């Protein structure tokens, strides 16, 4: 018994867990600063969510991996059902993205990303090498990916839907899709881009246009990017100090508790602070990747691959957005941004990875 526990402790991906805890801590402090040095309204709630998230992580990590395998389609089915329901029971201003669950607001598109990755991992890991080479076997993939993508897109939430799509495609890519399909896919996407553009809402077009030329519209959408760049830039090497970021504290920086929290950290702790955060993320990504590489079964490898890529996407899109490299698409910074659904989703994803790490001995055949 004691030996079992010690073995368990030994196999735990400590780097990942410690890094995640560090991020939660940094996030809590950032939220404390975002409310001008107060635990309410954000920091204290974030801690409660982190505690719930940690419990979810443990539950997911401890369950036998085949259960995960078996539950995966159900998960996707439920996710799709909820997404279908959003337009009818959801709330939100301009775009309907939320479902009210008692005191909580729940954003179904977040767990949907995870559900898509797990379902795709299961489906693709079950394909024989011949099937991998066959176009027909990708028809279910298109459905598994296309339906949630479409549902999130029409909410409308372009950013999340694109991230969902890219996360799913990464899994498909990692699963070994033949190169000729990849080339065809890229060409098809390029051809459909103009059509997609015409379908965009005006605010989405505006965001993209603003991204291309933020200074043109300083008090409009470009305001956010401009202020974010000012905040980051003025932070310099070491930052203005905790609670001393004038851009954040005087509300020049919008959404500083959610999408622009990285900017706030940058203003108050400078280049060094931002680099530390990115290094912790790097540690998590390395840990997830190593887990994937060590894993013997394809399901686990694809899961790790999908989750690491999804995490990376979050980070890249968020940081790219606040530094003005990418348009404002509304992507949270994992484990730091204020937002319950995103945080719980990340904890679930990390739980999946820890699960894989704890069960590396399994083979593909063990799932059937």
């Amino acid at each position, binding site marked *: 018994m004691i030996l079992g526990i010690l073995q368990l402790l030994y196999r735990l991906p400590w780097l990942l867990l410690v890094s995640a805890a560090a991020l939660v801590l940094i996030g809590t402090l950032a939220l404390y600063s975002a409310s001008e040095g107060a635990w309410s309204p954000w920091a204290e709630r974030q801690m409660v969510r982190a505690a719930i998230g940690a419990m979810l992580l443990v539950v997911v990590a401890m369950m036998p991996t085949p259960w995960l395998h078996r539950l995966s389609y159900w998960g996707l089915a439920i996710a799709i059902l909820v997404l279908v329901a959003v337009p009818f029971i959801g709330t939100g201003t301009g775009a309907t993205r939320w479902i009210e669950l008692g005191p909580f607001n729940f954003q179904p598109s977040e767990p949907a990303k995870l559900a898509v990755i797990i379902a795709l991992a299961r489906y693709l890991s079950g394909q024989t090498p011949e099937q991998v080479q066959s176009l027909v076997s990708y028809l279910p993939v298109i459905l598994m990916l296309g339906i949630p993508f479409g549902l999130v897109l029409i909410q409308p939430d372009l950013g999340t839907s694109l991230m969902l799509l890219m996360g799913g495609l990464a899994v498909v*890519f990692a699963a070994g899709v033949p190169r000729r399909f990849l080339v065809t896919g890229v060409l098809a996407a390029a051809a459909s881009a103009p059509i997609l553009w015409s379908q965009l809402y005006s605010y989405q077009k505006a965001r993209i246009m603003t991204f291309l030329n933020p200074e043109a519209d300083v008090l409009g959408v470009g305001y956010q990017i401009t202020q974010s760049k000012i905040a980051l830039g003025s932070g310099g090497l070491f930052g203005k100090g905790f609670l001393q970021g004038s851009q954040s504290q005087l509300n020049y920086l919008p959404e500083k508790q959610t999408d622009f929290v990285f900017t706030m950290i940058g203003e108050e702790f400078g280049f060094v602070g931002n680099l530390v955060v990115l290094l912790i993320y790097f540690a998590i990504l390395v840990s997830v990747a190593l887990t994937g*590489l060590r894993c013997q079964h394809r399901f686990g490898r694809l899961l790790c691959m999908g989750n690491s890529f999804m995490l*990376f996407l979050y980070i890249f899109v968020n940081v790219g957005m606040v530094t003005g490299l990418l348009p404002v698409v509304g992507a949270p910074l994992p484990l730091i941004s204020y937002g319950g659904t995103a945080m719980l989703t990340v904890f679930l994803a990390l739980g999946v990875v820890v699960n894989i790490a704890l069960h590396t001995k399994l083979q593909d055949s063990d799932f059937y």
Partner: protein
Amino acid sequence: MKKRKEQKELSTVMTRRMLMLGAGQGVLGALLVGRLYQLQIAQSEGYRRLSDNNQFDRRLVQAPRGRILDRKGRLLAGNSEVFELRMLPSRISNHQAWLKRVSRLITLKPEDIEAILEKITEQPKFLEVTVKSNLTQRELSRLAVLSPVLEGASFQKSYKRIYPQGWMTAHVTGYVSPVNKRDIDGEPDLRYLPETRIGRTGIEHNMEPDLRGLFGFERVEVNARGKPVRVLRDQQANPGADAYLSLDVEAQSFATERLRRGRWQAVPVQMPEVQEALLENEELRAHVSMGDDLVLKDEKGRLVPPESGAVVVMDIYTGELKVMVSTPSFDPNLFSNRLSIRDWQRMNEHPRTPLLNRAISGLYPPGSTFKMVVLAAALEAGVITQKTRINCVGAFEFGDRNFHCWFERGHGLVDAEQSLERSCDIYYYQIALKTGINRIHDMARRLGLGDVSTLGLISEKEGIIPNRDWKLEKRGVVWTPGETVVAGIGQGFVLTTPLQLALMTARIANGRSAITPTLTTPQMTEASPSFPPLDVSPDIIRFLHKSMRKVMAGGLGTARKHDINQGMAGKTGTVQVKRITKEQREKGIIDNIDRPWKERDHALFVAFAPYKNPRYAISVIVEHGGSGSSAAAPIARDIMDFMLKSDGVSA
């Protein structure tokens, strides 16, 4: 077997693809770090500046202007606190719409809005523009309600220049007005101090650098909505230094009223006859429309405005001016903010030029008050002695001209002392001729005539004390002896200011030092002043004193009715404004009172007192007031009496 191989191959492909994705992530991650380096290190300087611009609004803090006080600390010019609404152009996207919104709450005329918009384009965007100063309580409360949503608005305590004594001391204090384009050209820093008031005349102008003080500079930390959060004082506003004047407001007030009243009776302005007269008498109307309610009735029963003229009272030892009056005057408060066109027109079109400070800028022939100069010059030159007698037969023929004495029947045989006592013109025609214009000029200059004084007030006139060179230079013609003759009685080319006449009298009274006038008290100038010697023989001075005393005390003295208890020594002067033609003289000269005002003689009087132990010198001029003895001397008497009595009280 084949299956295993394929499995193995697929696994290799997957690993390779995972590594590819990882490498891709690594590249993109490096891109992020590079971007952060670019923003936070390479371009940090620029962003820091932008952040500061966001965080702080620069704001100038007005320094209260130094006060102007009289010798007893009574306020002549001060500041009243007012609230003003300012806008920060850089925080407002549509200035016109903003102003329009505000104009619904406070009265803003279209021309005001235009002026504000112009100002916005002229000055840097980060500087505030005053929208309206002197806000009423009602406007303040209205604006306060709206202020949370009125971006870029701020309320500032500001100062308005006030002159509690109003027009009574206007010519001394002068006035201030807002910075204009010409000021900015001369002093570019004023561009950033748009609310500054600049002294334009009087002490306000003279002591401008001391009075102005130093503007403070503060940074106001503002949040994204433009709401102030914190104020950082970078530079404290330094109030301007107070100016203590030698003036005595009580005496000034007495002298003003006394001069204005002249010889006439005050009539209540509400009386029907006054209202009636106002309709037809343009001069009276111009005067009453300036807000003055003193209307006089002259000896012929005509309604006339108060007398115009000047009074200067000087301490004969220190040169301090106790009184400097010029009437009519104006309200300097009108200039402190934007002067309305109507007020400006009223002042400009007033027939008696209220903006002219007659005490220093009014040029008058000194008339008989110049006789002390001629007498002193003649005695010094030795062309006469104190005993020299000359026979006055009422006229003196010189060249082809007849020079008349004011006393047509002639004074008969008069000596030097009697010549001054009775102001015999013939005596002075002759001694002037003997002395020569250059020596008269020399004496006049020593006694303080013909040059601007040390007061340093803007627009002070130097007057004219002619000599041969002057005539040649200015007129291109040689001096003629006939001109010396008229100069002997202070007419012709000779022009002086009331200040100079007071100075002349003070120097005669002092006798030893060539004192110079000042408007400030020793509190402001370090040591008590030491003056150069006067360089006129004590014998001559003594003789002048004695003769001037005779004017007041002699049985035939021209001012014998107007002496005071302590004894005064003086000299009357009556200045002809229009030449009297031969025909007029034959028909008999028309009385002053029957001539049009503009053609009446100027009445002058200079004096010092007490005779035994002189303290003050005074000069009075009543423009077109008639004779010096009847119009000016009584005024000087009453003022001198007041001066000495109030000294007695305070001593």
